[in-house]
C-alpha cells in the first residue's frame, strides 16, 4: 500500500468527520427544543446505583420542563474508560455533549482543544463565574481567560482516624505535621494494630502524598514548566512515605500489596488508627464496618517531613483540588442548551440535593456555605477550602505516572524492609527526565 493512498483514504475520512463537526445548527436555549436530546457522560456510582438512575430521570425531567429538550446519561466505569471515551469522541468529532471529568483530567481535556473555552457570556449562561467557590475554580483552565472546566462536585481528601485507638493511646488530636503523625503512629502501633493504613500498590494514592509533601515544602514537583522530581525535598518526601513501612514499621507489612480499597478495609477492621488520603465517599464503607461510629475525619498534616513549621514558600495544602469539572464539547450542536444544563446542575438547589444524595460537596458557593455549619463535615469542608490545584499542564498525566512509578519499583525493597538510597536516587533521576520530557512537549 502506498502512502498517498492511505493519505487519501484518511482525508476522505476526515471530510466525513469534519462534516459532522460543521453541520451544526446552533439552537438557542429558548425556542422549540422538543425532540432534542443532549448526552452527558459521567462516572457510574455503584454505591448508590438506584439513586443515580433516579437522579438522571429527575435531571432530564426538570430540563425538559424548562427547555423542552431531554437529557440522556451515559456512564463510564473507571478513569481508563473515561479517557478512552474522551479520546475516541474527540478524534471522531461526535459523542456526548457534556462531560463530567475528574479535576486532574481537565488539563488533558484542555490540551486536546476539543472543549469550549468559556467566554464571559458563556459563564453568564451557566449562572455566572461568581456563583462558584473560588477554590474550586483553581483547575478550570491555565488562566482565567482560557477556562474549560465548570466545577460540579468537590471531593477533597482528608484523613480518617479511629477515635477509640487515639484515646487509648492518650492522643488528644491528630498531628498537624507529617513527622508528628509518624510519632503518633509509632505510639499507636502495638498488638497487631498499626498506626497508619496506606495503599502502597494503589495507582493514584502515592503521587498525591508526594505532591502534598513537596508542595508544603515549597518545592512543588512542577513549577513554571520545570520538573523538580530530583530535588532533595522530593527525596525526603519519598523517604518519609516509604519509611512508614520500611523503617518506622507503623504500617502493616502486607500494605505493600494494598490498593486504597484494602487500606480502607484494614481501617474498617479497626486494625489501623489513621487512614490518610480518603474522601467523604469512604463514609459509606466505613459506616458498614466495625469502626462505625468510632471514627472521625481530620485534615491531613500540612507541615512537610523534616520540618516543625511551614517553610517559607511552602503552601499549607490539605489536599489536591479534587472533584469533578463539567466540560462542553466543541462539536456539540447544542452548545447553549448544554450550558443551560450546566446552569441547572450547578444551582444552589441542585447542588444541595446532589450532596444529600451522593455525599459529594457542592461547588456552588451558597450551597457550600450552608453546609459548612455541619460539625460532622467540618474537616471535609475545611479541606475543600484549603485544597491546592495540581499544575495545569497537558503533561501532568505523565508526571503523575512517573511519581507513582517510583513507588511501584521500590516495592520489592519495601517488602524487604528497606529503602535503598542509591536505587531511590536512580529512580528519581529517571522520573525527572520522563516528567521533563512530557512538560517540554506541552503546548
Amino acid at each position, binding site marked *: 500500500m502506498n502512502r498517498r493512498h492511505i493519505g487519501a483514504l484518511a482525508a476522505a*475520512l476526515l471530510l466525513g*468527520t469534519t462534516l459532522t463537526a460543521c453541520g451544526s445548527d446552533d439552537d438557542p436555549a429558548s425556542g422549540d427544543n422538543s425532540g432534542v436530546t443532549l448526552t452527558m457522560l459521567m462516572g457510574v456510582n455503584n454505591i448508590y446505583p438506584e439513586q443515580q438512575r433516579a437522579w438522571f430521570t429527575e435531571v432530564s425531567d426538570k430540563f425538559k420542563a424548562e427547555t423542552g429538550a431531554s437529557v440522556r446519561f451515559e456512564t463510564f466505569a473507571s478513569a481508563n474508560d473515561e479517557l478512552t471515551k474522551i479520546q*475516541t469522541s474527540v478524534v471522531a468529532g461526535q459523542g456526548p455533549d457534556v462531560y463530567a471529568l475528574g479535576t486532574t483530567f481537565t488539563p488533558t481535556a484542555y490540551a486536546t482543544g476539543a472543549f469550549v473555552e468559556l467566554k464571559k457570556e458563556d459563564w453568564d449562561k451557566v449562572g455566572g463565574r461568581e456563583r462558584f467557590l473560588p477554590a474550586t475554580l483553581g483547575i478550570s483552565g491555565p488562566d482565567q481567560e482560557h477556562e474549560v472546566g465548570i466545577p460540579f462536585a468537590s471531593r477533597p481528601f482528608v484523613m480518617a482516624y479511629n477515635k477509640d485507638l487515639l484515646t487509648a493511646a492518650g492522643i488528644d488530636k491528630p498531628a498537624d505535621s507529617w513527622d508528628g503523625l509518624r510519632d503518633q503512629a509509632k505510639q499507636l502501633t502495638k498488638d497487631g494494630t498499626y498506626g497508619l493504613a496506606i495503599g502502597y500498590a494503589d495507582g493514584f494514592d502515592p503521587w498525591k502524598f508526594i505532591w502534598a509533601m513537596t508542595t508544603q515544602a515549597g518545592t512543588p514537583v512542577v513549577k513554571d514548566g520545570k520538573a523538580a522530581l530530583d530535588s532533595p525535598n522530593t527525596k525526603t518526601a519519598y523517604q518519609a512515605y516509604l519509611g512508614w513501612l520500611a523503617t518506622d514499621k507503623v504500617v502493616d507489612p502486607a500494605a505493600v500489596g494494598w490498593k486504597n480499597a484494602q487500606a480502607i478495609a484494614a481501617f474498617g477492621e479497626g486494625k489501623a488508627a489513621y487512614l490518610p488520603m480518603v474522601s467523604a*465517599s*469512604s*463514609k*459509606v*464503607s466505613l459506616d458498614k464496618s466495625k469502626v462505625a461510629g468510632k471514627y472521625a475525619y481530620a485534615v491531613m498534616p500540612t507541615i512537610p517531613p523534616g520540618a516543625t513549621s511551614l517553610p517559607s514558600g511552602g503552601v499549607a495544602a490539605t489536599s489536591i483540588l479534587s472533584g469533578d469539572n463539567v466540560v462542553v464539547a466543541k462539536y456539540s450542536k447544542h452548545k447553549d442548551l448544554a450550558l443551560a444544563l450546566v446552569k441547572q446542575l450547578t444551582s444552589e438547589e441542585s447542588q444541595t440535593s446532589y450532596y444529600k444524595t451522593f455525599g459529594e460537596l457542592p461547588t456552588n458557593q451558597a450551597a457550600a456555605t450552608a453546609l459548612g455549619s455541619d460539625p460532622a463535615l467540618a474537616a471535609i469542608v475545611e479541606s475543600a477550602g484549603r485544597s491546592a490545584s495540581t499544575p495545569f499542564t497537558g503533561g501532568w498525566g505523565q508526571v503523575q505516572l512517573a511519581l507513582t512509578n517510583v513507588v511501584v519499583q521500590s516495592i520489592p525493597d519495601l517488602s524487604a524492609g528497606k529503602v535503598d538510597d542509591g536505587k531511590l536516587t536512580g529512580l528519581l533521576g529517571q522520573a525527572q527526565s520522563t516528567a521533563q520530557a512530557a512538560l517540554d512537549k506541552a503546548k
Partner: protein
Amino acid sequence: MRRSDEVARLLPGPLRALVLTVLLLIVLGPLAYMALASVSSDLAVARGALWPDGFHIDNYAKIWSTTNLGRGLVNSVLVAGAVAVVSAFVALLSAYVLVRYAFRGRIAVLRALLALQSIPGTLLLLPVFVLFASAATALGVTIIGTRWAVLVTYLTFALPFSTWVMVTYLRELPPELDEAARVDGASPWRVLTRVIAPLSWPGLVVSGVFAFLLGWNDVLFASVLTNPDTRTAAVELQIFGASQEGGALPVYGQLMAAALVCAVPVVGLYLVFQRYLVAGLTTGGVR
C-alpha cells in the same frame, strides 16, 4: 454402542479419575473462592478473608438493580450469538475456497490469517471508531451505539481465527467426497451445504464457540461502541469493579456474584452444543 465404547476407551479408569480430580481441583479452587466471595461483604473481600463474615446471599438479588445486568445479558447473547453464526458461516465459505481451490497467494492468505491474530485490540480501537463515525455521516445513519457496530468489530477479530479452524477441519475431509458430488452434477453451493457443512460440525461449533466467547468477553470495544441500551454484560460487569474515587470500596461481593451468573449462559451453551459435537462424531463415523 457399548462395545465400541470399550474399544474407544483412551485411559484406564483409575488414571482417568486421577487426572479429572486434579484438573477439577485446579479449576474449582479459585472458583470456590469466587463463590465464597460472592456471598461475602465487600469489606471482607477487600481484606482477603477466605471465609465469608456472614452469608450475604442478597448480593445475587442486588446485582440486578446495581446495573442493568439483565439487559446486558440479552445484548450479549444477541451480539455474541450473531458473531458466532456469521463468522462460522463466512469462515466455512472462505475455508472451502482456501482448501479446495489452488490459486496464487493461497499460502500467503493462510499465513496472514494467523498473523492477524497478533494485532492488539488497543491498536484498532481508534481507527474503528473513526471509520464508523465517518461511515455514519456519509450514509446518514447511526452506527456507533448500535449492536451492528460491535458485531462488525468482533467479526474483525473472530473471522481470521474461525477461518483457520475451518481450514484445519475441511482439510481432513477427503476431496473425493465433494468430487463425487460434483460429478453427480451438484453445484458448488450444494456441495458445500449438503456435503461439506454436515461433515464439519465440530469445526463449525468450535469456531462458533470461539467467536461467541470473543463477543462475550470483550470490554474494550464494547465500552466505547455501545450506549446504555446496547451495552453488553461484560461492560455492565466491569461497573461492579469500579470504586468511587478516594474511598468507597468496589462492590466486590456483587462483582463475584455477577461474574458467576454471567458464566452460566456460556456453560449452558456448551452443554447444549455437546450434542452437536457428538453428532459430528457420528456423522464422521458413518463414512
